[in-house]
């Protein structure tokens, strides 16, 4: 049986706005297994990033984590990250120590006024207690490991002197500095061009194998999912609507949203000269969430009188995959 490394259950994160409360994450359950890759996919605004940020409690005001549990199974006793005090040592150690995190805009995520070396060495010293000289040597080794050429010189470069891809490599080096067991990657390749994207993905995959760490990869790119994932969680409007192994998901999507997502992936040749299939409608404003299943207004298979009235049940199938949809209620699987 696989070891759960991180268990998120019932996570709810909301944003208080002048128009009312936006429930960005509304009861998310996710499990990351040690050494495995979990991809979280969904459209913009579905709560992927907020989920990732909630794990390390990085949600800024006016956002607030309102409930749920984030249980970390590290080397010691498992503990709930959300119940820790702000100054708890375990939270400090988790951030950057046991969990490394990389972000969407690599150059904005580095302070432009300090060299990448300074920011890397700072993190190394926080988590390892090395002295300045040893930390610098380790910084150079890490930069070398993430494929930054000429690391002895680049360690003293400022972020604005490096390309976006190089900055993301530097961010990865910072995230890896204390040998984390989990790397959270929040759309790390979105701001990069396609070739750089592929190289960064290769790098993450190599490093994952090398360090035997788990990866939680947030993306909206199904191609990336197919390439990286062991398990996939599909999110829609703050909820996980389907969870499955990557092969099962691509071979046999259960939830209508997943089906339509997969159908809208362009295929070279097939789609020439015709419109790309799209999901009709737009993601509803999370302030005015539709009653019942959030997806029913856009769903081709919605059942009137059912989908627009009741919350959909979470159906667990025999192989452990789940889908939150009435279509599989009763006839297949068991209600959770």
């Amino acid at each position: 049986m696989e070891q759960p490394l991180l268990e998120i259950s019932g996570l709810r994160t909301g944003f208080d706005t002048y128009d009312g409360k936006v429930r960005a994450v509304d009861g998310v359950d996710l499990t990351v297994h040690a050494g495995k890759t979990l991809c979280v996919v969904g459209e913009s605004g579905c709560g992927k990033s907020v989920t990732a940020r909630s794990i390390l409690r990085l949600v800024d005001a006016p956002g607030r984590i309102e409930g749920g549990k984030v249980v970390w199974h590290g080397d010691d006793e498992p503990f709930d990250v959300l119940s820790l005090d702000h100054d708890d040592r375990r939270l400090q150690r988790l951030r950057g120590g046991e969990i490394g995190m990389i972000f969407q805009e690599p150059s904005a995520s580095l302070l432009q006024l300090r060299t990448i070396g300074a920011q890397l060495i700072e993190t190394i010293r926080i988590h390892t207690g090395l002295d300045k000289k040893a930390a610098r040597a380790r910084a150079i080794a890490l930069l070398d490991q993430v494929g930054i050429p000429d690391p002895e010189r680049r360690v003293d470069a400022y972020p604005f002197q490096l390309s976006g891809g190089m900055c993301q490599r530097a961010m990865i080096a910072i995230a890896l500095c204390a040998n984390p067991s989990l790397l959270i990657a929040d759309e790390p390749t979105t701001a990069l061009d396609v070739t750089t994207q592929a190289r960064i993905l290769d790098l993450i995959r190599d490093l994952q194998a090398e360090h035997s760490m788990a990866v939680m990869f947030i993306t909206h790119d199904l191609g990336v999912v197919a390439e990286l994932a062991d398990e996939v969680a599909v999110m829609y409007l703050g909820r996980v609507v389907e969870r499955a192994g990557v092969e099962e998901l691509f071979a046999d999507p259960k939830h209508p949203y997943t089906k339509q997502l997969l159908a809208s992936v362009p295929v070279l040749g097939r789609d020439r000269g015709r419109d790309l299939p799209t999901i009709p409608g737009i993601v509803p404003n999370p302030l005015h969430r539709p009653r019942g299943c959030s997806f029913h207004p856009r769903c081709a298979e919605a059942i009137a009188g059912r989908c627009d009235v009741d919350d959909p049940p979470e159906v667990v199938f025999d192989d452990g995959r789940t889908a939150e949809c009435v279509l599989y209620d009763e006839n297949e699987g068991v209600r959770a």
Partner: protein
Amino acid sequence: MIKYLGRRAVYMAATLMAISLVVFIIISLPPGDFVTALRAKYSVMGQGLTESDVQALRVRYGLDGNILQQYWNWITQIVLHGDLGMSFEHSKPVADVIGPRLGATLGISLITLLMSWGIAFPIGVYSAVKQHSIGDYAATTVGFLGLAVPNFLIALIFIYFSVTWFGSVPSGLCSPEWCDASWNLGKVLDLLGHLWIPMIVIGTAGVAGLVRIIRNNLLDELRRPYVTAARARGVSEGRLLRRYPLRVALNPFVSTIGWVLPLLLVGDIVVGQILSLPTLGPVLLSALKAQDMYLAGSIIMVLSVVTVIGTLISDLLLGWLDPRIRLGHQR
């Protein structure tokens, strides 16, 4: 670097020449000149001046010839001999009029400036970090009041209360018995007893403005992705604030040096007038009123020089603080 400084020096000289010409022309624009004013003064005292007296006076004061000739006389004296000319009003060289007041002006302004930075900085940082807290609302409200109420009004209020409560007006920087005394502890204490009033009066608006600048800069920076990223790698909150957003929020501060330096020199003109402070502000005001053109022109020129130098200093400081400016061209 030397090439850069050389280029800047040439630009500065050109700027100053242009400023001097404009200043001189503007000062000479009002009809009449110092002799006209003098003539009016004499006729009030019953002594009419004949046309020939007036002509002789004009020649004596160097006010004959057209405006360009006057300008040429003035500027060549400054550039070649460092001579700022004579003040008609004070019948003294301009340098002797400005000199003694420079110390007091710089002293008051510098202390006020340091105090307002010292007070404004922690309040601004607190206000930004604890945005929407009661303390933030209090600081913001008081700040608005401080900005909205003109300095001279605060000065008048001070005078009103000190007259009604203490029966005397705190004016100047020293009590009569100490003014001519040599420096000793008593004089220093007396000075401190007077200094706090201009400091508060001039300082309130400064503090309020600075608090707003720091708060807004910092609020912008606190929302940047690098703050979240630094927090995600375990940088503790205090260190995070000091090393990341505060460091960035400081830069716009440095650029204020360019215009803070001339303010330091003049002091607050209106407040200086009301509280009879021995600063340059009131002198400039009366020189302009009396058409004492060499004195007024010289004070404004000194200010311009200081402004230009202040800008250079803040540019150099910014380059030193911000590697993007220093290394930007080496991308």
